[in-house]
């Protein structure tokens, strides 16, 4: 007996029709807002000059004095220009808001190197048209040390050679910070000791100018509509957790005028989905996930370039057995770095035995060569340490966080140590913040750590990370000879002498003391559509290749 069940069949039919209708609408246009089209924007440029980039996550803040994570810094760099900037991919320093590079000859730097008198351009404007003067720079640099602003961030500590800076962070008066606007176009900075890298530091984001009346509007001054910068782009939209849209600044005074009209950052935490979005034509630039490295190895759309970054085994040199230098030697020599780069990193990376990466003055290509991979040598070191064949070694735990790459890397290290030294080590995997907590309190024997440069100078790699009681000395390393060299280098202005002092310091750190077991230097691996023209990548890019020079990028017609 057939039953007419009109009610539920009807329901099903309605749902089916709705789904079909949706599918049909979906079929009608296959490509999401594709870039340009075939209309000529002149000179082979596309009519729609929009660059769509994948951003790994929501920026924590767009306040330059507080920007710390790579998405923050990457976006901040488009919205502001400081006194100086990088001139080209060689990271040479050129004037930006400043009129010229201050030198002893032109009176910009005093003879003793303690007073900088920086002349500004007289055509500086904010993005809303108001004039930008030295007073704005005075306010911003002082703000860097304000406990309620930059004094709660990571980077003010690079600028504490400025007299009054540290005192202000500790609660002293901001008026005592010796940065002052002599007149509308002259800024004077006084240091407690000469600093060779001051101009570079003034090219970085913590020294970017913000306007007092904008900041005073309240905590949400960094939202689109209130944020005012002086850079080539303006923040026109910030849909939190979703996307950030920058548009070209009509009131940009700089010589590096942008061709791009819009930069569209799409926040996509999952890099696999971002890759599909790239394939689908929704993104113009995206990173290549580690697991897909082989697939794009020969692709013309691949951009692969070295980064100023080093990763390897970070020892707690005060905890057994890594308080024994020969044990550290043994572990460092037991790692087959080439296989690591090829198998674990998909060929993306540069094996190394050096702490400093190539490109940093003071880098020595022979650094750490005594600890290049050699299983027999490694066993010998272990014997020298008093643990022949691993006998007598305490339990060893390699502590890592819970990311996929840390899992792969730690398993590789465990296997190498087993195979080449005959030693069994445990892997302890911790949840992200739990790991960081233990890491920052140096509560581990050995972990996988490293460093990524804030700027291209050995000063960023050595004293604050390995100096006795230095704020970032996680390994608890201490060597007075090293400290002396660092002190000398800090006061030295001649580049060659500085480089040599840092080179000597690194020799102690790595060749003598093996405080760190380097494995590889990071290499950035991204994809960019063929119509994206002019990407100028550097070793110090934050998040996206070429993000120091987006003003050089244009979209070709396609």
């Amino acid at each position, binding site marked *: 007996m057939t*039953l007419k*069940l*009109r*009610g*539920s*069949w009807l*329901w*099903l039919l*309605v*749902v089916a029709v709705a789904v079909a209708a*949706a*599918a049909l*609408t*979906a*079929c009608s246009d*296959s*490509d*999401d807002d594709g870039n340009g089209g075939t209309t000529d924007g002149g000179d082979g440029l596309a009519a729609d000059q929009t660059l769509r980039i994948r951003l790994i996550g*929501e920026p*924590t803040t767009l306040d330059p004095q507080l920007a*710390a*994570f790579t998405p923050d810094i990457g976006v901040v760099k488009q919205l502001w220009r400081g006194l100086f900037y990088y001139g080209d991919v060689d990271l040479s320093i050129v004037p930006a808001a400043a009129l010229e590079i201050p030198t002893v000859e032109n009176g910009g730097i005093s003879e003793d190197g303690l007073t900088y008198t920086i002349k500004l351009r007289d055509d500086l404007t904010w993005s809303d048209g108001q004039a930008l003067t030295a007073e704005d720079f005075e306010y911003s640099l002082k703000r860097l040390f304000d*406990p309620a602003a930059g*004094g*709660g*961030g*990571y980077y*003010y*500590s690079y600028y504490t050679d400025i007299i009054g800076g*540290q005192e202000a*962070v*500790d609660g002293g008066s901001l008026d005592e910070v010796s940065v002052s606007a002599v007149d509308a176009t002259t800024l004077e900075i006084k240091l407690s000791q000469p600093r060779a890298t001051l101009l570079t530091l003034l090219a970085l984001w913590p020294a970017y100018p913000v306007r007092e009346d904008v900041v005073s509007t309240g*905590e*949400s001054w960094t939202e689109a509509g209130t944020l005012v910068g002086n850079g080539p782009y303006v923040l026109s939209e910030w*849909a*939190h957790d*979703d996307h950030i849209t920058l548009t070209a600044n009509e009131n940009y005074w700089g010589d590096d005028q942008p061709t791009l009209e819009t930069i569209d950052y*799409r926040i996509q*935490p*999952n890099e696999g*989905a*971002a890759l*599909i*979005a790239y*394939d*689908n*034509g*929704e993104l113009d630039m995206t990173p290549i996930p580690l697991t897909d490295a082989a697939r794009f190895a020969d692709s013309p759309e691949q951009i692969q370039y070295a980064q100023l970054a080093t990763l390897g085994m970070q020892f707690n040199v005060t905890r057994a057995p890594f308080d024994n230098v020969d044990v550290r030697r043994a572990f460092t020599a037991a790692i087959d770095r080439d296989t690591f780069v090829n198998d674990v990193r998909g060929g993306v990376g540069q094996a190394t035995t050096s702490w400093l990466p190539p490109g940093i003055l003071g880098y020595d290509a022979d650094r750490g060569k005594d600890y290049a991979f050699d299983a027999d040598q490694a066993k010998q070191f272990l014997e020298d340490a008093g643990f022949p064949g691993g006998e007598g070694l305490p339990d060893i735990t390699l502590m890592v966080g819970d990311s996929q790459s840390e899992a792969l890397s730690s398993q590789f290290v465990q296997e190498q140590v087993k195979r080449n030294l005959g030693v069994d080590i445990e892997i302890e995997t911790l949840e*992200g*913040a*739990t790991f*960081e*907590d*233990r*890491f*920052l309190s140096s509560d581990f024997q050995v972990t996988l*750590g490293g460093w990524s440069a804030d700027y291209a100078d050995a000063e960023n790699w050595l004293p604050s990370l390995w100096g006795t009681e230095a*704020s*970032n000395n*996680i390994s608890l390393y201490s060597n007075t000879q090293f400290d002396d060299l660092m002190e000398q280098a800090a006061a030295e202005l001649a580049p060659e002498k500085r480089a040599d002092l840092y080179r000597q310091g690194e020799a102690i750190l790595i060749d003598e003391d093996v405080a760190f077991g380097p494995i590889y230097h990071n290499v950035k691996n991204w994809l960019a559509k063929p119509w994206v023209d002019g990407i100028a990548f550097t070793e110090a890019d934050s998040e996206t290749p070429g993000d120091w020079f987006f003003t050089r990028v244009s979209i070709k017609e396609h």
Partner: protein
Amino acid sequence: MLTFILHRLLWLLPVLIAVATITFALMHLVPGGPWDSNRRLPPAAEENLNRRYGLDKPLPEQFIDYLADLAQGDLGVSYRSLNRPVSAIIWDGARVSFTLGFIALLVAVGFGVPVGLLAALRQNTVIDYASVGFVSIGASLPSFVTGMLLLVVFSAELHLLPTAGWGSFRQAIMPVLALSILPAAYISRVTRASMLEVLQQDYVRTARAKGLREQVIVMRHVVRNGMIPVLTVIGPVAAALVTGSFIIEYLFSIPGIGRTFVTSIGARDYGVIMGTTLFYAFVVVLFNLMVDILYVFVDPRIRYQ
């Protein structure tokens, strides 16, 4: 009925306080803090931050301060989205997750109930087996797998749908589908079981004996009575859907509150953790209340004093 509702709403207060206390305690028991990252903050900076946000005070004092602010409607600010008000974060995220979840709920119910009903009415026929088969597959596939499959097929291979983001109808299709399959399977299974039970009841046999048309019997008697267990199930399902799924929001890059909630835990973003947990508790209580009210309309035997 009104007293009943009022009574339930009054219970919200002790529930929320209990949730707040437990969450606050757990949050601070777990190692790590909001300022942790892979490099050390200069010590003066950490002091400045802790002082500014009241994190240097003893924990009980922090908790009382939090409750006092909460009573005035101030949920504090986020640390990971520096100084952004927690209420704004919840409002922005919840709007998105709610829309996504609500559409997914409609699809899940709109699909699950008729399928379950059909299977019950045509028990032990091909239709029944097919629907049970669909249910088994749907209930066993994790939403991450379904989501990835949809992405690969419709975005990567066929280039029909956009992979990510939220805002347009086309962007909603895959997340809704991925989100609704599991609840649809579950609802369909409960519906089928419930309807089968009702079909055995005496009053259905009476109705048939009286000569009523089958369609009338089904629509007026079977469905309405069989819906009660289904409603019980829809309540928590709706609450879960509407408060956002981390996996779907992560996979499809949807700026919803599910994603915010999970990432705030990893980031030890105390204000957001407290705010979202309290919000979730509120939603669960509310939805359970709504389901209880719906009972009155569905089953005349149920009355509240």
